[in-house]
């Protein structure tokens, strides 16, 4: 292991501070005894009680998590394929298909998907339409990261695997996938955060009676976003953390990898 300079540590610590300063505010203010998300008044846990009685908010949070999980899994699957394809084959169209949704303003994406679902597919809007929309804008992020990971990698390993008689699937399983895994997981994490935070596209594609957390919270913006939202955000982070820890626990091979 190389010696890491103290400066690097200091710089990284400052960046973590930058990331966590607002978050600390979010968590602290979830215990604030004031309806306003503005100044500290005193300690209370009442916002958590309010939250646990707020069925709408809880249902919205559950919807958000389900959509985020679904969208990030499927977008990661498709995005990884796209990233590999873009790297391996000299494709002309796919790179554009992948980067354009990232480049397109989300309002346009939202309106166009809404028009398409209703006027072309005659689909009743619901959770499914939201899921499809989220996959569409997450896919590009995954593909770009996966491709960046593959760029500049030594091609000889793939050739060696093929020369040793491995089928394409085996090569993928044994060589490609392990090599790009950090990018795949980074892509999944990005998709998850993109999906769970999306308001604009969700607003347009959500059906009657289907709400997600951002929809719920944005509609409160006019009358004040109460600390109940801080409370639900805090819990959401804990749930996310829990899910990732669980996922890591379940994967026994990872355990072996560490030993």
């Amino acid at each position: 292991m190389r010696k890491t300079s103290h400066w690097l540590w200091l710089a990284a610590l400052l960046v973590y501070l930058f990331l966590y300063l607002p978050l600390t505010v979010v968590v602290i203010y979830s215990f604030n005894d004031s309806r306003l998300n503005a100044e500290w008044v005193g300690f209370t846990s009442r916002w958590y009680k309010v939250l646990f009685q707020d069925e709408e908010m809880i249902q919205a949070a559950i919807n958000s998590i389900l959509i985020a999980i679904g969208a990030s899994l499927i977008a990661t699957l498709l995005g990884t394929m796209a990233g590999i394809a873009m790297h391996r084959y000299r494709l002309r169209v796919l790179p554009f298909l992948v980067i354009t949704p990232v480049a397109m303003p989300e309002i346009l994406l939202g309106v166009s998907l809404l028009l398409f679902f209703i006027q072309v597919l005659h689909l009743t809007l619901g959770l499914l339409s939201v899921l499809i929309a989220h996959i569409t804008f997450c896919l590009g992020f995954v593909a770009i990261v996966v491709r960046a990971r593959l760029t500049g990698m030594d091609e000889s390993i793939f050739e060696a695997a093929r020369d040793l008689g491995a089928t394409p699937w085996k090569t993928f399983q044994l060589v490609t996938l392990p090599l790009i895994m950090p990018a795949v997981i980074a892509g999944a994490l990005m998709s998850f955060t993109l999906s769970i935070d999306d308001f604009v596209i969700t607003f347009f594609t959500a059906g009657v009676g289907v709400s997600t957390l951002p929809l719920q919270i944005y509609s409160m913006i006019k009358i004040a976003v109460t600390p109940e939202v801080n409370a639900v955000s805090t819990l959401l982070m804990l749930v996310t953390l829990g899910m990732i820890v669980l996922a890591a626990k379940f994967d026994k091979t990872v355990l072996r990898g560490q030993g």
Partner: protein
Amino acid sequence: MKAFLTTEALRHREKSCKKPSVPLCLCGGFLLFLFSITALARDELHLYNWNNYISDETVVRFERSCNCKLVQDYYSDNEEMLAKLAAGASGYDLIVPTGNAVESLIKSGQLRPINKQLLPNLKNIDPAYLDTAFDPGNRYSVPYAYTITLIGYNAEKMRALNLPTDTWAVIFEPKYLKKLKGRVTVLDSQRELMAAALKYLGYSANDTDEAHWRRARDLIIRAKPYWAAFNASSYIKELTIGNIWLAHGYSNDMFQARQDAKNAGRPFTIAYATPKEGAVLALDSMVLHKTGPRPDLAHRFIDFMLVGKNSAELTNLIGSGNPNRDAMRHIDPAIAANRAVFPTPDIQRRLEMLMDLDRNQRRVLSRMWTEIKVR
């Protein structure tokens, strides 16, 4: 935490790869779940509404009386709702849009006429709020509540600075604004801000003469350097904590700011007043969307909301103006006495409801708005 992100660890994965992958199973189960929950249907009334625009007690009583479930979806802006419906979103029984949005929905043929026979309580509505320009004869809409776009201010600060609080001049005139630099917010809304400027210049809020618009634009551009922000969302909070001393905004919001400041024990009070030049009155009405599957329940809901007590609960909750005569005796006396919520006849005459613009006017206004934002 396990080393699941590093390549090193993953070189050991090969043995587990023969198992069906966990993510795939999850996806499948997830899709099944999606289809299963969309298939359910009960006696439900779908209300597309502003958030916090009906009190919880009212909802509970309505649900008991109709033996159904009130499901609400929310929007925070008329335009959001209009855009979604214009693209063809469907399934909402009831919507609560503001006057000009009602006009747009009527003219684009998206509404179902109401059946007044089913609304015996319609008689409770003050005739001043019926037969409006946007829906003559109330064929499609029933008044729900209103707000007035006015100025809210930090009473102590304004007094100390010796500034007037009964005129738009304080928002637009540099001689006053000098004392308030960086402490003023105005609404981030083309129509509302232009309306205030037009009113101050002595024109109608619905004036569409381009020359008048240009004068209003110049007035706004002249005042802009003194404003802190165009703000539609956080001025309640900023007023309450004392960062902002003067805000152009809705009477409901000012009511909220006043309550919040009082509850937080602030050393100042938030007051609000309708400028003497007149202002915009936004009347929100209940309308039936054509695609709503349950017009029967929707009519029951409308009639229920026309009962004075139910209507009054909303006013007591958010300080909205109330067009229901029968509601007055249930309204908190402090609110009922507030002239900014229930204006005197004299002021009432100077209130205007915004009418919808046609597409060319909208483009011209949008161009001016862009200029206002950039300059």
